């Protein structure tokens, strides 16, 4: 019943002072809007990082051939020849390992008809696509049988396919890699740049054995990618892989590792964490403006209570109870913040979309940020409206009535 009476009264009071109401709500509009827009930017960054990590194969360990010290001379990274397919197979037996992918890489010039393109060939096993979670856009991947036979087949990255074939489908065609004729079995789906800006689509995938023997003339491998069940498993496996490889490579305790292990799961975790922190930081900075908007509401409501002291006195003389007055003013504050919140949602979503459209930022509008910003606006309304409303309701009738 109180609501039924206070509701229209509050609305009417705001309506009588449209300009002031609008200006008061502006603080909340901007506050809510900026929370939503800022969180959208943060969440966009978060999503982008997640995509990149995903495309690199998160939850994974990477073993690379290391340096060797021979007579005091240390060669560069990836120069040891001790890493083998057998190492990869041994690692695959460790508990917690989901898939392994031994790889080698060769820089090549690829030709098709009159076009040619400098790129890399990754020699790998079929497990590679699984570890990278990398689907094909068309055609088929190569199989274990291709690997066993060191077959002259390959799968093209999008960039290579575009550079050599343009808009024509390369599937079934034969390209020349370092003078070697290779049949194109399929084309990989586009992956874009990785976290370091390297175009992952600018590569050719071919059977490990073929690249080892025909292109590089080696029997060792350069890297092993290990997919694990999670960040925890990765951390545990890092130590186990290290022990296993030292043992297999018969390294003495005083010898340093002839390989390096990179824990991408850790990297993924850290990047994701910093993106989250970034989002919250942006959100909290924006929340401050929402708070300032709330203080604006309180300010105006206090002025309004003073200005309308006489009105309050008249209402009390006519039979308004304290709670009638309280609700009238509280609802005014709530309306202001709710209307401000709704308009702020429009503003926030609008500017986030505009930002995503016209700038480099990737944005992701988070539903939780809309909910959070709106409820926060409501809370701000109650919190900052309550004091003026209580003040109004506590006036003594006769004093309010005599107020000049």
């Amino acid at each position: 019943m109180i609501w039924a009476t206070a509701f229209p009264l509050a609305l009417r009071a705001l309506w009588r002072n449209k300009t002031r109401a609008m200006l008061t709500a502006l603080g909340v509009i901007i506050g809510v809007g900026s929370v939503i827009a800022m969180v959208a930017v943060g969440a966009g960054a978060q999503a982008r990082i997640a995509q990149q990590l995903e495309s690199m194969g998160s939850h994974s360990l990477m073993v690379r051939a290391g340096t060797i010290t021979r007579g005091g001379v240390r060669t560069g990274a990836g120069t040891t020849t001790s890493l083998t397919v057998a190492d990869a197979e041994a690692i695959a037996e460790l508990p917690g390992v989901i898939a392994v992918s031994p790889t080698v890489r060769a820089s090549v010039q690829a030709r098709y008809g009159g076009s040619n393109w400098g790129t890399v060939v990754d020699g790998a096993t079929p497990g590679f696509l699984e570890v990278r979670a990398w689907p094909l856009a068309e055609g088929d991947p190569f199989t274990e049988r291709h690997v066993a036979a060191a077959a002259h087949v390959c799968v093209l990255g999008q960039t290579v396919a575009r550079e050599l074939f343009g808009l024509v489908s390369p599937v079934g065609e034969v390209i020349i890699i370092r003078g070697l004729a290779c049949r194109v079995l399929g084309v990989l789906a586009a992956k874009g740049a990785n976290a370091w800006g390297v175009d992952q689509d600018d590569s050719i995938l071919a059977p490990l054995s073929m690249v080892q023997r025909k292109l590089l003339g080696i029997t060792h491998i350069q890297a092993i990618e290990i997919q694990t069940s999670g960040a925890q498993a990765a951390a545990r496996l890092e130590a186990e892989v290290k022990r296993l490889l030292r043992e297999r490579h018969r390294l003495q305790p005083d010898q340093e590792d002839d390989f390096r292990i990179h824990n991408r799961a850790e990297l993924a975790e850290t990047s994701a964490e910093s993106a989250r922190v970034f989002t919250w930081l942006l959100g909290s900075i924006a929340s401050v403006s929402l708070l300032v908007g709330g203080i604006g509401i309180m300010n105006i409501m206090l002025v309004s209570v003073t200005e309308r002291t006489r009105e309050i006195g008249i209402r009390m003389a006519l039979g308004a109870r304290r709670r009638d007055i309280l609700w009238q003013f509280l609802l005014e504050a709530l309306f202001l913040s709710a209307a401000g919140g709704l308009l702020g949602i429009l503003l926030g979503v609008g500017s986030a979309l505009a930002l995503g459209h016209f700038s480099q930022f990737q944005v992701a509008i988070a539903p939780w940020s809309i909910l959070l910003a709106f409820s926060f606006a409501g809370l701000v309304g109650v919190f900052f409206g309550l004091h003026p409303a209580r003040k109004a309701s506590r006036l003594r009738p006769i004093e309010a009535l005599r107020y000049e």
Partner: protein
Amino acid sequence: MPPLIALEQVHKRYLMDGVAVHALRGIDLAVERGELLAIMGPSGSGKSTLMHILGCLDLPDSGRYRLDGVDVTHMDPDALAHTRNRTIGFVFQSFNLLARTSALENVETPLIYAGVGRDERRERARAMLERMGLGDRMGHLPSQLSGGQQQRVALARALVTRPPLLLADEPTGNLDSRTSAEILALLDELNHAEGVTVVLITHEEEVAQRARRRLTLRDGRLDRPEGPP
């Protein structure tokens, strides 16, 4: 039946800049239902103070006030609000209409606080304004009305809840003599025709003449009653 108003030894002091003003110094007063009582007295004699206490807008410092047999001096703010709403209608010298609020909405306001539904509220407010001769001014704002019209809106607002008691504190103080006469005639008619108890504060001797009972307040005390008891 107890009298509608019964005051016993009511005192009221104000503290102004450390100086106590003894506005009411022991008022004893009984007003029966259906009376029209005129209270006169020089400016500053405590008339308005008395009226505010009678109207439950303020409480006495000491003494007892029973309204319709109920002691109001111990009521909480909500109960006092309820009493003002149901039992008392006010008319002030300065009209005290809600600004930027139409005549109709002004008259509806006490009904809002009485919990009367929207349609009935509107109907009763309309009827009351028509009775006051303002049928064609319902949508007007106070600023668009003459003094006499404003006071008639105030009167409609005071009466729309059908209170048994009407308190009027110099209701014609801001009006010319012709409109004053109209307002007073209305009060007279309400008292006669509907039995509304009216307590009227006035400066004008001729106004007071029309009342059946007259009292004079001097320096916070009531003089001996004049006229019929």
